[in-house]
């Protein structure tokens, strides 16, 4: 009897380890997470407009139907990224997610305080390698450090009423997300 109780206890303890292991491994193995879903349709280092969600189809679950949205799937292995998002009349926000969909930074139009939200996205290493003087001239530019090499930027503009959805979509359409090297190159 005691033997079985001990085995039960041992099994339960082992079960606790199984539980913690599955919870930690799950984000690394999920194939239907937001990043994997968007990876199929969104090219790297470019802004892709997302369809407004409808009952028939939605790019991902639990999207807010009052927003026009776009994503930029980024890869910083080739260098930093420059992001510029014009501000819509109502409310515009830019949220940054890691490869595993953890939101590590977000800014809205009021916090940016300008007509255009302009950001430089880079890894901590790339930030450290930036020359000192360039850092000073770039002082008015916001620098965001990405904890992972790849990830997602979600750009969203609110349509306070359905009639204003086209305004929000046009704002989003003008957003740009390009590699810093390409942005500096003269056309």
């Amino acid at each position: 009897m005691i033997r079985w109780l001990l085995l039960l206890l041992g099994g339960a303890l082992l079960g606790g380890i199984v539980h913690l292991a599955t919870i930690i491994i799950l984000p690394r193995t999920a194939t239907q997470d937001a990043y994997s879903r968007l990876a199929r349709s969104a090219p790297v280092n470019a802004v892709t407009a997302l369809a407004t969600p409808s009952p028939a189809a939605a790019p991902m679950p639990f999207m807010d139907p009052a927003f026009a949205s776009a994503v930029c799937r980024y890869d910083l292995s080739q260098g930093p990224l420059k992001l510029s998002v014009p501000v819509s009349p109502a409310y515009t926000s830019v949220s940054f997610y890691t490869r595993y969909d953890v939101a590590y930074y977000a800014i809205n139009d009021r916090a940016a305080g300008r007509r255009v939200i302009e950001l430089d996205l880079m890894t901590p290493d790339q930030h450290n390698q930036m020359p000192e003087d360039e850092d000073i001239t770039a002082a008015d530019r916001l620098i965001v450090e990405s904890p992972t090499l790849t990830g997602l930027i979600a750009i969203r503009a609110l349509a306070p009423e359905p009639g204003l959805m086209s305004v929000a979509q046009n704002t989003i359409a003008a957003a740009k997300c390009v590699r810093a090297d390409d942005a500096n190159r003269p056309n």
Partner: protein
Amino acid sequence: MRLLLGSLFALVVAAVVGLGATYLALTRGAAFGPLTIGSWTAWPKTGTADADPYAQAEIARIGRLPTALGDGVAFTATSDDNGRRLDGRCDVVLSGVTPAARFWTLTLYRPDGELVANSLSRFGFTSQEITRFADGSFQIVVAPRANPGNWLPTGGIERYILLLRLYDTAVGVSTKAGREVPMPAVNVRSCP
């Protein structure tokens, strides 16, 4: 033989306990730091870089992008103020005010996060669309059939989730439930 049987028993117990606990944690919402006000619960920390493993696993399983804390806070309601599960065949009344925020949106989803089809193509309200009383409070009727005033159609589905998202708000990780953060009351008015 006894040893084999014993270790097999222990392994089965481990699998049932471990996977069962994972399933429960992912379906019931076991992320740390919930902020519950009335029927509404938000996980402000889930929208930050400090999101705990439970929040990360839940996000990955559902496949959504969480609302980042610098953007806003999302409050979820799955039951009314008496603890009864929200039923799309009943008339449910949301009444009151929201915490201070630049904008808010209220959206009705199926439990899996899809929108519910209806003839009006109305999936929710924004704070600007709503008609209010003179004191700034509002009333929204969530019901299968048309109602006067702010009517949010349920399509008659059995279970649904309400999401109230506050954008550009001071509500966050350090917020405690209290008078500064009033959330609308959720009450069933009638049920067939």
